[in-house]
């Protein structure tokens, strides 16, 4: 549905609907509560929200009446024995042996993204680094253990000590902890056993057997913050999406630029253009019909994370990233410091929408050629999804 936008904000869930050629927004639930992500399950129409209560922890919420009422859903919990490797906390014990990593009990820090597969299948990406899967429309969720136990993060800590070495780092989004997070679950609509996750900070992993086995898909990725810029792991994808109609086409807005794959993530190629300010950013949206078309909202460098010269613009490529068109018509070009988070850009048909940390929601009805600000004073926006 491109006539409605679901908006998750720091202070609640908003519905933004188009009628009589106008977009109007209303607070639809979770007043005063942080909402990391809101999306509609296309299989049954249920709305799902990933909440972050300041005091009371992360909670899943859902609405089966199109956003009129919301209720707590069955909650996600890490199973007994789930541990992950992380840098040790500073110790006051002067005699303690220095260690690179220690194992920590996993408890739910954050629900970060929700995705939908075949009817009944729901995915939730979490911090610390969990993929939870439901096959009963969200009545129960199980941790995907092959990914949790992947060799890249130290092996199986449920049944032993593992390798003692992890290549997964952390994300500042981890509610004050140093822990990795899964922010992208990328579902191949042509094959129910084929999906990807993207992890801050580890990289992209792919399964082709429904989650039984996983392999890293970071060939061609480069980074500029590790000693080895071509390291297999330690990459920082900010968001990964694929083209629904051409699922071999994937795009990645990464900490270190925009990357494109045309071969189902077997290889990646950097396609950003730092010389024209199209390089750093958080979100990316891919045309569901054309795998060579994508939109990004560039920001200025990882060190500053603000708009480029105080101007807000979207960039669109229609040729797989060879060239980019900056789209500024209708967007503020003076003293604009909107930052757009990773889940806050979305496309549906000719409609493109994005929301910013300054509470502005912008909509284009012509693929980004021109924009309207349809809400100015929302809370800081975390997610924008049509549905």
């Amino acid at each position: 549905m491109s006539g409605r936008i679901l908006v998750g904000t720091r202070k609640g869930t908003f519905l933004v609907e188009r009628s009589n050629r106008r977009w109007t927004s209303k607070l639809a639930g979770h007043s005063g509560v942080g909402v990391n992500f809101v999306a509609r399950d296309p299989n049954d129409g249920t709305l799902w929200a990933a909440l972050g209560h300041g005091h009371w922890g992360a909670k899943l919420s859902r609405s089966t009446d199109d956003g009129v009422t919301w209720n707590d859903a069955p909650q996600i919990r890490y199973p007994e024995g789930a541990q992950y490797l992380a840098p040790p906390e500073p110790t006051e014990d002067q005699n303690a042996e220095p260690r690179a990593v220690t194992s920590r009990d996993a408890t739910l820090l954050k629900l970060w993204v929700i995705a939908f597969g075949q009817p009944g299948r729901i995915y939730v990406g979490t911090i610390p680094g969990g993929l939870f899967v439901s096959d009963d429309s969200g009545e129960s969720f199980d941790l995907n253990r092959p990914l949790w136990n992947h060799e890249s993060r130290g092996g199986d800590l449920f049944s032993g000590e593992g390798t003692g070495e992890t290549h997964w780092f952390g994300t500042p989004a981890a509610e004050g902890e140093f822990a990795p997070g899964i922010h992208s679950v990328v579902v191949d609509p042509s094959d129910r056993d084929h999906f990807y996750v993207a992890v801050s900070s580890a990289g992209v992993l792919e399964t082709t057997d429904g989650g039984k086995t996983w392999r890293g898909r970071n060939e061609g990725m480069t980074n500029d913050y590790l000693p080895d810029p071509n390291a297999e792991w330690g990459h920082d994808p900010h968001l990964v999406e694929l083209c629904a109609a051409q699922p071999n086409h994937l795009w990645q807005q990464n900490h270190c630029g925009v990357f494109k794959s045309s071969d189902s993530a077997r290889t990646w190629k950097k396609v950003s253009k730092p010389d024209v300010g199209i390089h750093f950013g958080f979100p990316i949206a891919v045309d569901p019909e054309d795998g060579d078309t994508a939109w990004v909202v560039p920001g200025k460098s990882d060190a500053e994370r603000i708009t480029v010269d105080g101007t807000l613009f979207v960039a669109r490529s229609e040729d797989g990233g060879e060239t980019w068109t900056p789209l500024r018509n209708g967007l503020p070009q003076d003293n604009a410091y909107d930052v757009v988070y990773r889940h806050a850009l979305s496309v549906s048909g000719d409609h493109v929408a994005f929301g910013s940390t300054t509470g502005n929601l912008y909509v284009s009805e012509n693929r980004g050629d021109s924009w309207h600000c349809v809400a100015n004073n929302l809370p800081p926006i975390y997610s924008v999804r049509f549905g």
Partner: protein
Amino acid sequence: MATVELTRHLLRFFPGLEGKALIVEARTVAEVIAEMEKLAPGFAFYVCDERGRLRQHVNIFVGDQRVADRRGLTDRIEPDSCVFILQALSGG
């Protein structure tokens, strides 16, 4: 028997508890939480994480004493105890 008093923040999420006298049979704070979970399913996961530890930004007082054992909630409950479950304000 202990009397439980809740912050209004929690009553918002468990409106069925509004206006009720919350008197539970419990010898420890952990048992108080377990009894509250029976009265209001989902309550325990608001107050504690999945390992049963008190969430970082939640406080429980028994009388005017803040609980000592945030990990196991083994603090003793006396028959006439009043247990307060509150958000842990850190100012601001």
